[in-house]
C-alpha cells in the first residue's frame, strides 16, 4: 500500500511546441514504493511529461512538488540532484568507458580529492551491482555487455545518484523475456526500498505484471488515474485510444490463405545455405508470392541477421540467394533493391530515417536513390506520391514539410513504410516494425501487412512478440543461437507455446 503522501505531485502542467500543444493542464502524482505506469499512445505526451519532470523541457504553466517542496528543474542535472533520475529507452552512458566508470561518471570517488580512486570505485560498483544480482566484470567496457545489462547498469547508476524517483522510459523495448524478468526483479527490490518508479512501456502484459497504479494520457490531456488491478485491459486500451476497438478485433478474424496454396508456385526468393560466420549459421529459406514469413526467436538469436543477409546489408560468406529463378550475384543493398526487395530495419533512427530531413524527403528517398541524382522525381509526381501515402498510412502530422525527428515513433515507422511502398517492392522485409509504437499504429501496420500480402507482396516479418508473428504469418521460422532451427507451418496447431518450446528445445518437433 502506498503512503497517503505522494513523493511527487505535478499540477496543471502545460507545454507547447510550435504548432502543437504537447501537454494541456495535466496532473500527475507518484507515491513512494510504487511502480506507476504512464500510459498513452505515441504522441499522447508521455515523453513530454517525463521531460518536463526531469528538466529537459520547461513547462509554460503548472507546478511540481517533490517531497513537499515546490521545485522547478531548469536542467536534467538539477532534477538529478533533487532526486529524480531517468533511464531512457536508448541507454545514454559512455560505451567505451568501463562499467564502474559509467556508474560513477561525474562523481568519482577521489584520492585526496585529486585523482580517481579506482579500487574504491570498482569495489563500490561491484557492491551496487550485487544488489541487483549482477555479477559482472566492472572493469570491462560498457559496450561489451548486452543492452539489457547496460540498462540495468544505467538503473543502478540512477538509483545510486538519487533514490527518490526513478523514471524508466521504455526500458523493456529491446529486452527478451528472461531479461525483462531480471529487470522486474530489480524493480520490485527498489520498490521495497521505497523508491518511486515511473514506468513507461508499450507491452500491456508487462504493465499488468509490474505496475500498481497507472495514469493515462491522450492527445496531451489527462484521461485519469487508476489502480492497475481495477482497470481491465480492454478498458485500458479503449481509454488510451479513445475510440473504436474494432480495429484490433477485426484483425483477429482475418481469414488466412492456405499455406499449401501459396507454396505450390515457385518461390519468389530462395535462400540456399546463406550464412556468415559470427552472424548466423547457413540457412535455407523460401519466400513465396503473397506469403508472410514470420521469424521468431529470442533477442540476438539471429533474426535480424537473416534479414540483413538476404537484403545484402551484410555480405554473406556462403550460399546463394535466388530471386524469381535467377541468382543474385553482387550482394549489396542496392542490388537487392534492384530486384524489388525492401528492408525496414529494426533501428529506425540509426539505420532507417534521416532525421534532419522532412517527411517528404524521407519518403521519396528510396525511389530517388534508385533513379540516381541525375533523374530527380518530377515535383508533381513526388508530391502526388507523398500525399497519397501520407493519407493511406495516415501519417500525423499530415505535413510533408515536417521534420521526421519531430514525429512520434509510430509515425516515423509509417514514413519508413511509405518510403518502400512507393517503390512497389515484391518482398518487404520488416524488422520489428511495431516495436515501441502505440496500439493504434500497431494495429494499422499489422492490417497493412495482411492487405499487402493479399495483393501478392511477400513479407518477411520479424518481431519479438510471438502473438503478432502468429497472427500475421503463413509460416514461422524459428531461430535459436544464431541458427534457423525450424520452419513451422502456421495452422491451428501452432501456438505461442509451441514456438516457445521450439526456441527452448531447438527442435522443430511434431505438434
Amino acid at each position, binding site marked *: 500500500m502506498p503512503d497517503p503522501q505522494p513523493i511527487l505531485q505535478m499540477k496543471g502542467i502545460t507545454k507547447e*511546441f510550435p504548432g*502543437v500543444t504537447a501537454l494541456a493542464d495535466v496532473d500527475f502524482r507518484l507515491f513512494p514504493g510504487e511502480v506507476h505506469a504512464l500510459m498513452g499512445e505515441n504522441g*499522447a505526451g508521455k515523453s513530454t511529461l517525463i521531460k518536463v519532470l526531469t528538466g529537459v*523541457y520547461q513547462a509554460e504553466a503548472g507546478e511540481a512538488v517533490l517531497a513537499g517542496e515546490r521545485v522547478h528543474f531548469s536542467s536534467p542535472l538539477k532534477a538529478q540532484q533533487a532526486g529524480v533520475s531517468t533511464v531512457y529507452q536508448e541507454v545514454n552512458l559512455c560505451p567505451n568507458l568501463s562499467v564502474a566508470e559509467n556508474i560513477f561518471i561525474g562523481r568519482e570517488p577521489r584520492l585526496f580529492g585529486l585523482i580517481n580512486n579506482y579500487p574504491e570505485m570498482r569495489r563500490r560498483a561491484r557492491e551496487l551491482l550485487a544488489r541487483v544480482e549482477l555479477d559482472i566484470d566492472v572493469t570491462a567496457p560498457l559496450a561489451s555487455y548486452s543492452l539489457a545489462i547496460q540498462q540495468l547498469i544505467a538503473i543502478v547508476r540512477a538509483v545510486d545518484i538519487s533514490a527518490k524517483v526513478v523514471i524508466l522510459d521504455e526500458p523493456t523495448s529491446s529486452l527478451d523475456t528472461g531479461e525483462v524478468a531480471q529487470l522486474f526483479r530489480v524493480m520490485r527490490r527498489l520498490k521495497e526500498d521505497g523508491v518511486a518508479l515511473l514506468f513507461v512501456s508499450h507491452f500491456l502484459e508487462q504493465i499488468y505484471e509490474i505496475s500498481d497504479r497507472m495514469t493515462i494520457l491522450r492527445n496531451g490531456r489527462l484521461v485519469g488515474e487508476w489502480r492497475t488491478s481495477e482497470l481491465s485491459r480492454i478498458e485500458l486500451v479503449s481509454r488510451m485510444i479513445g475510440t473504436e476497438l474494432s480495429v484490433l478485433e477485426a484483425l483477429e478474424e482475418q481469414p488466412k490463405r492456405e499455406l499449401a496454396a501459396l507454396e505450390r508456385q515457385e518461390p519468389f526468393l530462395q535462400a540456399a545455405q546463406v550464412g556468415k560466420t559470427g552472424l548466423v549459421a547457413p540457412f535455407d529459406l523460401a519466400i513465396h508470392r503473397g506469403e508472410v514469413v514470420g521469424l521468431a526467436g529470442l533477442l540476438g538469436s539471429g533474426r535480424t541477421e537473416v534479414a540483413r543477409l538476404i537484403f545484402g546489408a551484410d555480405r554473406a560468406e556462403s550460399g546463394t540467394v535466388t530471386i524469381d529463378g535467377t541468382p543474385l550475384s553482387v550482394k549489396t543493398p542496392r542490388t537487392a533493391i534492384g530486384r524489388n526487395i525492401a528492408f525496414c530495419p529494426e533501428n529506425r533512427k*540509426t*539505420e532507417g530515417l*534521416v532525421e*534532419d*530531413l522532412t517527411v517528404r524527403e524521407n519518403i521519396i528517398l528510396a525511389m530517388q536513390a534508385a533513379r540516381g541524382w541525375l533523374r530527380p522525381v518530377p515535383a508533381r509526381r513526388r508530391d502526388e506520391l507523398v500525399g497519397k501515402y501520407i493519407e493511406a498510412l495516415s501519417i500525423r502530422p499530415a505535413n510533408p514539410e515536417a521534420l521526421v525527428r519531430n514525429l512520434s515513433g509510430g509515425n516515423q515507422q509509417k514514413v519508413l513504410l511509405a518510403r518502400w511502398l512507393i517503390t512497389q517492392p515484391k518482398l518487404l522485409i520488416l524488422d520489428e516494425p511495431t516495436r515501441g509504437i502505440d496500439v493504434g499504429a500497431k494495429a494499422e501496420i499489422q492490417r497493412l501487412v495482411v492487405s499487402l500480402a493479399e495483393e501478392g507482396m511477400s513479407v518477411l516479418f520479424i518481431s519479438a512478440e510471438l502473438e503478432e508473428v502468429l497472427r500475421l504469418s503463413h509460416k514461422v521460422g524459428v531461430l535459436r543461437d544464431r541458427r534457423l532451427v525450424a520452419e513451422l507451418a502456421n495452422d491451428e496447431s501452432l501456438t505461442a507455446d509451441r514456438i516457445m518450446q521450439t526456441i527452448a528445445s531447438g527442435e522443430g518437433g511434431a505438434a
Partner: protein
Amino acid sequence: MITLTRHRLFWPVVVLVVLLLGNLLEKPDFFAIRIQDGHLYGSVIDILRFGAPLMLVALGMTLVIATGGIDLSVGSVVAIAGAVACLHISKQPDQNAIGGVLIAVVMALGAALLFGAFNGIMVSRIGIQPIIATLILMVAGRGIAQLIMDGQIITINSTPYKWIGAGWLFTLPAAVLIALAMIAVTALIMRRSALGLLLESVGGNAEASRLVGIQSRSLVLLVYAICGLCAGLAGLMISSNVSSADGNNAGLLIELDAILAVVIGGTALTGGRFSIGGTVIGALVIQTLSTTVYTLGVPPETTLIFKAVVVTIVCLLQSPAFRRKVFGRWGPRRTPPASGSAPSEPTNVKVPA
C-alpha cells in the same frame, strides 16, 4: 516577426548588416558607389570583389561538409592552380594571347579537379577519415606547387589573365560575376537535380543512406572533385589579381576562413542540411570583417583577435540555447499559453511521443 527571426539565415544577415553599419560610423561614405571609366567603385564593391575567392572556396566546402566531410587541402589547391596557370602563361611567347591563357586556365582547373578527385578517392574508396585524407594534400600540395614552379615565384604580364581577378564586365568586377555564376549554377544543380537531397541524406545518416541504396561513394567523390574545382577557380582569381603565383602564400589559411563561412551560414559540421545562401553570407561576413578591421583602424597586431571575437559572437548568436539564456531573462520571450500566439521555443525542439 517571429517567423522572420526563426529563419535560418536571420542571424547571419543581422551580423552582416551590423558589421556594414559599423563601418558607416567611422566612414560616412562607406556605402557610396562611384562610377569611374564605366566601372563601379566603392567599399561594398571591394568587399564583393575581394570576397569572391573565399565565396568560391566556401561553396565547395559547403558541399563537402554536407556529406559529413571536410576539405583542408583547398588552400594548397589554390596555390597549385595558380602555379599551373602562371607557369604555362610564362612559357608563352606572347603572354597576352587569348589562346594561351585559355589553355592555362583549362589546365589549372583540370589539375584542381584531379586533386579534388584524389581527395574524394581517399575518402570514399579507401575510407580514410576526411580530415586526415585532405591533410595529406594540404601539406603535400604546397610542395607540389613549389615543384611546379621550381621553387620560384613566377610573375607574369598577361592582360587577359589579369582580367579574371582584376577585370570588369558590365561595370562590375569580373571576379564577382564569375563567383556568382558558379554559385548560381551549383545551387541550381543541387535543387533541380536530386543531388542536394542525396548529399543531405548521406551526411545526415550514412548507414541509412547505404541501406536505402544511395551510391554514396560516387556522390562523395563527385563532391570533393567539385570542391577542388571551386578552389582551383579561386586560385586563378588570386594569382591573376597579383599577376603572379606564390606556392607558399597563395590561399594560405583560406580553408579555415571557408569552414568558418560555412558554419556561420548555418551548415552544421556534422553534415546533413546545407545552405549555399548561408555560405555566401558567411563568406561576406568574413570579408566585411577584414575590411572593417582596416576602416576602423584596428591596430594590425590585434586584427586576428578582433576577428576571433566577432566570429565568437556570431556563433553564439546562432545558438538557440545561448539566445534563450541571454535574452530570455529580460526580453519578453515567454508567451503565455493562453494568448494562443506562437510559443517562444526555437524551431528545432522535439515534439516527441
